[in-house]
């Protein structure tokens, strides 16, 4: 099974090709150019390097959200176009789960935090539990969701992590803006993922997609829509106005 994984949910543009056994290619660019200029040339380059063709992919995985609305749409539109043209199934990967797979196999509590502005982070809480074959010596890991992805205030996230009470590792671009609050409020040991594991990785998204495929969580190219986790500003403000009207 060959998976093409795409990510454009944050500042990183990522393209990876992988199978269950190996990552055949991973191309990551974290530069000022827009994903619209980088992602397809990167895909083209990867295919040339692999002397392969995009039609060889069995599944097209894409980080479907949350993230930058525009970035999500560039990536999703690209995946939808590829899926339509090649008639391949798509795998929408929740972005915070994809991030957690950067640390696949860690025995700590994994807490991705993505900068969501408006004093919130996009976050989730995940673990990898050992599930090796008895006596074989080879360990595999089972992904567990402690809390599914959501937009939340960092204080609420930290409160929950303190209650869980296990050593935690943070990753994601939300670290920069929230480092001080974390240092101030965390009551359990914690660390920040190193730079090369901190931001989105298409290969990690692909690893996550392997699990989602096994769980049957795929969709058609037509069905894929980004999971923004948020209404648009206009919709939100309109709802606020209507709620204000309803109050006595």
């Amino acid at each position, binding site marked *: 099974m060959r998976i093409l994984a795409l990510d454009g949910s944050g500042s990183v543009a990522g393209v990876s090709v992988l199978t269950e056994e190996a990552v055949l290619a991973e191309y990551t660019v974290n530069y000022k150019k*827009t994903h*619209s*200029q*980088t992602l*397809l*040339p990167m*895909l*083209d380059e990867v295919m040339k390097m692999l002397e392969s063709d*995009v*039609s060889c992919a069995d599944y097209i995985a894409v980080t479907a959200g949350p993230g930058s*609305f*525009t970035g999500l*749409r*560039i*990536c*999703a*539109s*690209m*995946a*939808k*176009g*590829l*899926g*339509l*043209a*090649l008639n391949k199934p798509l795998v929408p990967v929740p972005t915070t789960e994809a991030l957690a797979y950067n640390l696949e196999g860690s025995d700590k509590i994994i807490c991705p935090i993505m900068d969501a502005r408006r004093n919130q982070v996009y976050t989730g809480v995940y673990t990898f539990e050992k599930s090796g074959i008895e006596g074989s010596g080879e360990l595999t890991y089972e992904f567990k969701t402690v809390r599914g992805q959501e937009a939340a205030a960092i204080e609420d996230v930290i409160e929950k992590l303190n209650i869980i009470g296990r050593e935690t590792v943070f990753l994601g671009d939300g670290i920069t803006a929230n480092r001080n609050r974390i240092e101030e409020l965390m009551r359990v040991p914690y660390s920040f993922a190193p730079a090369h594991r901190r931001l989105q990785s298409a290969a990690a998204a692909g690893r996550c997609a392997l699990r989602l495929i096994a769980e049957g969580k795929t969709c058609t*190219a*037509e069905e894929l*829509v*980004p999971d*923004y986790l948020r209404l*648009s*500003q*206009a*919709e939100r403000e*309109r709802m606020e106005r209507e709620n204000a009207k309803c109050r006595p």
Partner: protein
Amino acid sequence: MKPVYILAIESSCDETAAAVVKNGREVLSSIISSQIDLHTIYGGVVPEIASRKHIEKINPVITEALQQADIRLEEIDAVAVTCGPGLVGSLLVGVSAAKAIAYAVKKPLIGVHHIEGHVSANYISHPELEPPFMSLVVSGGHSHIVVVKDYGEYEIIGRTHDDAAGEAFDKVARAIGLGYPGGPKIDKLAREGNRFAIAFPRAHIEGCPYDYSFSGVKSAVLNYLNQQEMKGEDVNKADVAASFQEAVVDVLATKAAAAANAFGYDKIALAGGVACNTALRAKMEEICSSERIKLYYPEPILCTDNAAMIGAAGYYEYIKGVTHGWDLNAVPNLKLGEKI
């Protein structure tokens, strides 16, 4: 000669559209999914809502266009897509999907200027029309007088200094309580009114005989409404709509005809959403027939945003050998004639 089939995609504002066009002039399919109802409650297009809707609609619209044309992607010669101007979030959905499709089926990609598309809608409605000619492009975002020197070769000789004509329609419509979209609503109400009831100003700009300004007439309407209210007098909305529309189409038509005469063209092609306006068509007919200018305009379905027009424009780029790389980007303020 082997026919050329273009798959065209348009998503620059609030319409998601795809079409298959044969040899630049024959529309095999043209699918348009309009979002207008979604935006009406906000009084105008909300970019983020538009972008979200585009991504839901892009695949069904493309699939339907292919099915209706009874053509497989492998039989398409190139993929053309609007890459600007427009709302960047909206443009990006079409551009990203078009790039991926072209890449996957190994066909050339052609980025098309939205206004070139509008002008090219005339090639579909008028098989005999060929450049050179003068074009008057009027829509919610544009008011241009353009010399079409050749296929894909444009020179803008007149533009608006402030509001686009369609924008002024929207604003006036809002002021008299007609809501969004203003153009068609004013056009309809104006038929019940007297276009000579109120004398609204026509802007002439010193030294720029072919340029427009519509903020003055818009302000004049708003002032008139305020004055009537202060005097406690009723406003005849139909008269306001008709008189405002008359002021706008009068100046649009007069300057376009003057430009055609001055530059020596005997053909004018109307283009853009406002090209549907019945008063503009009537005024253009009137002036053009007295000036012996032949007038062209696309059928209404090709005036509003659609992908068939992008297919027509894309075809002429294709036969000239113009294609774009996989790094093609959406350019929200793309200038006409600017190389992408």
